[in-house]
């Protein structure tokens, strides 16, 4: 046993220095045994989520594999039937969007609300952009959506902007410049296009509606990783269906399901699997047991 020469207290076998005064233990008769610690040892970059790191990576990996499969299987079927990638590009894109929005945050060391929001937000923007390119051969209706999303993102960034930047650039200035730029851009497009009311606003409205419903669901009732995944899958499905209806109405003049049908087919197995896991306590228990550390 060792004693602190300054404090006079007896130290534990794992103490390299006195926890009270920091005096280094200098006892030639003993070896410091860190394995006898009473608490787990702090790691250099210990964060609150540290113990969940491995579980998070595992969840991220499982999600990546699931999305990869939902992208690959339709692509292989398409290649086999049509000997080219035709319709399978939609499930591929949807899976990519889901992976970007859901799986990527699980690989991040530290999640922040704004960081995760940005990933999902720009993921949707890129998705919309590619869909537009594929359908119309150029940047047509998606420019309204993307520019509106950029505006919302800047407004959000103003709230979460780090103090270091805020010190030099006032948030209000960023807001004014962005708002003026956005409305000038919109005005120049609307001069020969009336897509704002029939396309941009419904798309924005549908995103807002889904976001609000999800937000209140999470706040009021939902907890648990399975509910969380289920909600994201469900939201993606609803957004895709709503987008499809609104875009088809804008392009063809009537509502119809087109590409969202493929997204629904791709997502339904995942939703059903999550629901089964949620319902079956034994399976859920097994997953908790296997994933806990």
């Amino acid at each position, binding site marked *: 046993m060792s004693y602190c020469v300054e*404090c*006079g*207290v*007896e*130290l*534990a076998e794992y*103490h390299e220095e*006195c*926890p*009270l*005064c920091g005096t280094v233990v200098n006892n030639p008769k003993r070896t410091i045994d860190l394995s006898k*610690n*009473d*608490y*787990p*040892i*702090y*790691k250099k970059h*210990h*964060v*609150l*989520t*540290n*113990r*969940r790191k491995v579980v998070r990576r595992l969840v991220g990996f499982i999600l990546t594999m699931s999305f990869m499969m939902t992208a690959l299987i339709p692509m292989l079927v398409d290649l086999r039937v049509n000997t080219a990638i035709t319709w399978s590009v939609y499930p591929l894109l949807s899976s990519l969007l889901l992976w970007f929005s859901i799986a990527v945050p699980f690989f991040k060391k530290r999640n922040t609300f704004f960081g995760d929001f940005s990933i999902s937000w720009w993921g949707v923007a890129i998705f919309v952009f590619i869909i537009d390119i594929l359908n119309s051969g150029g940047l047509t209706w998606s420019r309204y959506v993307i520019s509106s999303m950029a505006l919302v993102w800047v407004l959000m960034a103003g709230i979460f902007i780090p103090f270091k930047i805020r010190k030099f650039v006032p948030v209000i200035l960023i807001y004014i410049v962005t708002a003026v730029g956005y409305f000038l851009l919109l005005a120049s497009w609307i001069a020969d296009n009336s897509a704002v009311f029939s396309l941009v606003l419904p798309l924005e409205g549908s995103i807002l509606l889904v976001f609000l419903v999800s937000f209140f669901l999470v*706040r*009021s009732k939902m*907890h*648990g*990783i399975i509910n*969380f995944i289920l909600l994201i899958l469900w939201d993606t499905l609803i957004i895709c269906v709503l987008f499809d209806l609104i875009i088809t109405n804008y392009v063809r003049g009537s509502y119809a399901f087109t590409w969202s049908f493929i997204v629904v087919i791709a997502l339904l197995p995942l939703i059903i699997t999550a629901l089964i896991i949620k319902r079956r*306590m034994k399976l859920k*228990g097994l997953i*908790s*047991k296997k994933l*806990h*550390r």
Partner: protein
Amino acid sequence: MEENYILESDWYRLDNSAKIYPAIMTERQTTLFRYAFTLTEEIDPELLQQALEIIFPRFPYFNVSLRKGFFWNYLERNNDRPTVHCDTPAPCESINDIYNNGFLYKVLYFKKRIAVEFSHVISDGYGALEFTKTLIFEYLKLKGHNPENDGSIMDVSEKPDKGEFLDDHKRYSQIYGKPTEEEKERNLFGKTKAFLIKGRVLPADRYHIVTGIIPSDDLRKKAREYNATITEFLTAIYLESLIEIQFRQVKNPEKLRSVAVQVPVNMRNKLESKSMRNFSLFVTPTLNPPKFPGFDELVGFTRDFIRENATTKRLINILRDNVSVGESPLVKHVPLFLKLPITKYIVNTSGSSQHSGTLSNLGLVKLPEKMTELVEDIVFNLSPDPHAKTNAAVIGYNGRVYLTFGRVIKDAPIERLVFRKLVKMGIHVKLQSN
């Protein structure tokens, strides 16, 4: 009829003490306190999970999630399953709803140690200790040790008693009625600010714990020399250390502040109660500058203060007054979204600056004989306090007193002074730390 209603209800009101916690809960101020039982052998997580599953239906009032109503937060029955997790380097880390299935308590294991962390929203030290003792008892049973229950452990086969669900703050305030103006013991406003230790604050994911293991006979003998109890004696040492630190940190004598230590009092020792929810109050020995006495006088002051203020009559007055605050129409009918920030502001400005530290003595823990052979140590620690920065928790078990300090600052001035003083008095102290 009422009994069935309570037992079958899927939601409960927060008890009167707990109402304040949702407003002040943050990643730093987690409101979690912890019991850690060190056994003689390595913990088997699967058996611990089984033990938890056996006991958790016996404590329905703990199997709840915190929800928001329009006027008050409330506790909703959580039908999910609590799971055990591996312990973390920093005790009392904030609860993650997704990770913890929405429960307000955590069961953790590490090597030979089983730790249970409880949010003050659902219970105080007494309720949590009963839960932890029952868990350890069932775990040891599953391990094949078959300890005999001498009545000190709750029986999991029994149905929970209606009294265990009750908010006894409210019950006793209804029995004794509202306090008159003279009887009011309100302690939130109009008091001078207490000294708060200065120091480099650690990030929210760090919480330093130092436990001093002290032979209880030596400590009791020393306390008796001053005609004081262990709580009174340790509070006096705590106060003296705070005074010394203030003199060191505040050079201008005009800026010296009062030094005050909150001492929780278990109301179950004063009034008949079966409640497993919060049922404790505080007395706060306070010394005003510039006249800080010597140690002998200090022990006398602390002893007299605690004995005068921890009388049943005074505590009932505090209890009645505390309940009357929550019952006043101004508080009762204000929506929660307004109530929470206002409460947070009041607590963080007026409330938390009225004490320089907390010393909670849970008393002696007695376990069945066979269980005592299998449980080596019991450590109790309080939740991180970002205002006072340090706090102390005391628990007695098997001839030893475990004095645990928790701090959110880098340096350990209080622990250093308190333990050095004890050593100087000839009391042996052995340290554990994270």
